[in-house]
C-alpha cells in the first residue's frame, strides 16, 4: 500500500485559522476608524530590493507587450510602491500584503508570509511606536497578558545584556565579547565590518531576552543599519529606525522615512556594490521610487509588522507552521 498522504491537510487548526481572520478584521477596523486608507500594490516588479541580506524570487514574463521576456521580482515588502502612493498624495495608507523572501525558512520564517505595512504622515518613529503598541495591544487583548511597553535604544540593549557600546566598539572588542558570551564564532566573520558581529551578538545573546511579557521597542540603530530610515546628525549619527520584540520574537520594523532621493540612491548603490563583493547579482534599482522621492515624500514614518508571527504569539504557538494553513513544505 502506498503511504497515506496527510500533507494535503492544513497544518494550522481551525481555531487558529478563525483567529487569523478575526485579527485581520480587527486590523481593518482599527485603520478604518483612523481614516487610514487600505491600498494594494503589485507583487511583481521590474525592480527589486538591493539589501544584500534579502533575496527576491525572480520570474520571467513571456508577453504580450513591451515587457516581453523581462525578469520580474516578487516583492519582499510593499514599501517602494507604497512610497510612490505617498508621494502622489495618498495620505496615510496601509496594506496587508503577501511578501516573498527566498532563503528564509525555519520555525519563525516561511518563504512567503503576510506583512501589515502602514505609513503615517507627520509621525516620527516614536509617535509611530505609540500607534504600533496600541494596535498590537488591541490584537492581543484577552489572549496574551502584557505589562507596559518599554523603549530601549540599540545602545542600551547592548550595554544592558553584554556591557558593550555597539556604536563605538571595534571588531576585536565585539569578537572578544562573543567569546566571553560563549558563542561559537561562525567561520568567515569579517575582520573589517562590525555589523555582522553586532547581528551575531543581537540574535544570539540579546533577542531571546527582549519583550519578555511586554512589548519592547528597540530604536536608534547604527547608521550602517539604517536601511530606509533617516539619519539623525548626532555623534555618531543614528538611523531613526525601530524594531518591536515580544517574547524574543521580532515582530515589526519601522522607519522615520528617508525622503532624500540622492541619499537613497547612494544607499542602493552601496548595497549593490556589497552584493557584487559577495558574489551576488546586483538588483535593478527602483527608478520609479527614486523619481517619486525626488518629487517629494511627505514627512512620514512607516512600519512593517509580521502578521503570521503576531498570530503565532496570540495563539500561544511557537512555530509558524501552527498558524499557516499550508506552510512552505505543504504549498
Amino acid at each position, binding site marked *: 500500500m502506498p503511504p497515506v498522504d496527510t500533507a494535503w491537510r492544513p497544518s494550522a487548526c481551525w481555531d487558529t485559522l478563525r483567529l487569523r481572520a478575526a485579527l485581520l478584521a480587527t486590523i481593518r477596523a482599527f485603520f478604518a476608524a483612523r481614516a487610514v486608507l487600505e491600498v494594494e500594490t503589485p507583487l511583481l516588479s521590474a525592480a527589486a530590493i538591493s539589501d544584500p541580506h534579502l533575496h527576491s524570487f525572480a520570474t520571467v514574463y513571456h508577453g504580450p507587450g513591451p515587457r516581453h521576456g523581462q525578469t520580474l521580482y516578487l516583492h519582499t515588502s510593499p514599501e517602494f510602491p507604497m512610497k510612490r502612493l505617498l508621494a502622489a498624495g495618498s495620505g496615510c495608507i496601509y496594506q496587508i500584503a503577501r511578501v516573498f523572501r527566498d*532563503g*528564509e525558512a525555519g520555525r519563525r520564517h516561511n518563504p512567503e508570509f503576510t506583512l501589515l505595512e502602514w505609513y503615517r504622515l507627520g509621525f516620527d518613529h516614536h509617535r509611530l511606536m505609540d500607534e504600533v503598541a496600541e494596535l498590537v495591544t488591541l490584537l492581543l487583548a484577552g489572549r496574551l497578558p502584557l505589562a507596559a511597553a518599554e523603549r530601549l535604544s540599540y545602545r542600551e540593549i547592548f550595554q544592558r545584556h553584554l556591557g558593550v557600546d555597539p556604536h563605538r566598539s571595534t571588531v576585536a572588542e565585539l569578537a572578544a565579547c562573543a567569546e566571553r558570551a560563549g558563542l561559537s564564532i*561562525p*567561520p568567515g566573520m569579517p575582520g573589517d565590518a562590525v555589523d*555582522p558581529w553586532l*547581528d551575531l551578538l543581537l*540574535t544570539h545573546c540579546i533577542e531571546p531576552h527582549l519583550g519578555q511579557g511586554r512589548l519592547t521597542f528597540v530604536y536608534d540603530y547604527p547608521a550602517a*543599519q539604517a536601511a530606509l530610515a533617516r539619519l539623525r546628525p548626532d555623534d555618531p549619527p543614528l538611523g531613526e529606525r525601530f524594531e518591536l520584540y515580544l517574547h524574543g520574537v521580532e515582530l515589526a520594523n519601522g522607519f522615520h522615512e528617508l525622503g532624500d532621493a540622492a541619499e537613497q540612491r547612494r544607499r542602493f548603490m552601496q548595497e549593490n556594490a556589497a552584493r557584487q563583493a559577495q558574489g551576488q547579482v546586483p538588483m535593478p534599482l527602483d527608478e520609479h521610487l527614486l523619481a517619486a522621492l525626488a518629487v517629494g515624500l511627505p514627512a512620514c514614518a512607516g512600519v512593517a509588522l509580521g502578521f503570521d508571527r503576531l498570530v503565532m504569539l496570540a495563539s500561544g504557538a511557537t512555530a509558524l507552521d501552527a498558524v499557516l494553513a499550508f506552510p512552505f513544505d505543504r504549498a
Partner: protein
Amino acid sequence: MATYSTNEFKSGLKIMMDGDPYAIVENEFVKPGKGQAFNRVKVRNLKSGRVIERTFKSGDTVEGADVVDVELQYLYNDGEYWHFMDPQSYEQLTADAAAMGDSAKWLKEEALCQVTLWNGAPLSVAPPNFVIMTIIETDPGLRGDTSGGGGKPATLETGAVVRVPLFVQSGEVIKVDTRTGEYVSRVKE
C-alpha cells in the same frame, strides 16, 4: 567530498568540522530584522558522541563528511580488533575498541550490526536491538518466584551482565534489549 550550503542543512546531515565528522541534530535559522542571517546548529560528534552548538553565516558552505551506515556481519575478535564482513561483497573490515564502544559485549558471531563507516572505516558499531544469549552464571534464585520483582545479575556468554528475574537459571537462553541493556524474556530453544 561534496560541500553543503547552510540552505541544505537538516537533521541527520553529516558534515566535517575541525577534522571530525559530525551529524546535524538540530538546525535553527535566525535572522535579525535586517542584516546577517545565521544557522545555529546542534551537532553530534560521531567519534565522541558529544553534542555541541555551532553557528554558521547563512549561505556559507561546509565540507560534507563521507559517513554511511551499512549492515555488516560480525565474524570474530582477534584480541585487539573486531572483524566484520559485508554479506553482499564479502569485503572484510576491522573495528577498533574506540569504534566498538559498549557494543562488543552484545556481539555473538554472525550477528548483523549497523556499522557507521567514515571514509570507509568503521567509526561506530551498533549491535542488533535484540540479542538472544545463554546465561553462563547466575545465583540460583528462589523456586516458584514468578513475580519478576527484584531480580539478580546474570552473566551472559559474551561476558555482558544483565539483571534477570529470580526464576531465571544458569544455562537458560534469554532475549535482551541492547539499547537499554534490559532482560526481555526467556527463549525456548
